[in-house]
């Protein structure tokens, strides 16, 4: 029988794969996709919690997260486009403005 824990483990692994992407990939676009993966991991955990706790609130949360993610992606991608226009690159290693 599939339990709550199993879903959570899948969610955790998905999150870590996303984290791995964020940490290793250099392309901003792929970085963004990895972020999406992490968000989805959270979604999965929430839906599972909603199911196993007999409570629809979790699903509502997911609903909100999807919306926020959409907004985030639109702004983020617009930023990437604007950045690319200026710097002709989407590689994070070329972006070191945070250095003092």
């Amino acid at each position, binding site marked *: 029988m599939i339990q709550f824990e199993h879903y959570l483990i899948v969610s955790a692994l998905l999150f870590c794969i996303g984290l791995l992407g964020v940490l290793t990939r250099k392309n901003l676009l792929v970085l963004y*996709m990895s972020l999406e993966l992490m968000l989805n991991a959270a979604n999965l955990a929430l839906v599972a919690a*909603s199911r196993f706790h007999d409570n629809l609130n979790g699903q509502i949360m997911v609903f909100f997260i999807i919306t926020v993610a959409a907004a985030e992606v639109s702004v983020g991608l617009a930023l990437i486009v604007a950045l690319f226009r200026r710097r002709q690159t989407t590689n994070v290693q070329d972006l070191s403005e945070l250095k003092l």
Partner: protein
Amino acid sequence: MIETLFFITFALLTLICALLVVANPFSRNPVTSAMFLVLTIISMAGLFVLLNAFFLAAVQVVVYAGAVIVLFLFVIMLLDIEEEERRKLKQFSVYSGILVAGVVAVIAITAILSSGIGAYASASPVIQGNPAPLGKILFRDYLLPFEILSILLLVAMVGAILLSKKDLK
């Protein structure tokens, strides 16, 4: 029994596709990554169905696979991505990334297994993630966040348009 089978299938599909999004041994083309992301999301929608979240499964496919990924592809096409493939990955950053992600994974899984969180789950869940009950909650209990969210979307839209204008001041 069949449910278990489905779960294993979808879970494995999700994880493998996700892995291929971030670390495809054959191609580092963002387009490939985006395609695997679509697959990941669709298999997650399968998991959602298994969890009785039917409406969300539909939204997942429509919004993510349909809208978000298309947006990604547009941007990929818009930009020149030839250069990225030629760059070498730094060994150090790859290994350290794997290490950190692995450690987090191990800690999280250990914590989940040892916490006994399943005991808190209800024995025979009954809820159905249909639009009707979801809508009731959404428009009654969560009306204010919902409205605020709409403003957020508006702001994001304005922001995106402003940012993509040619002469950015």
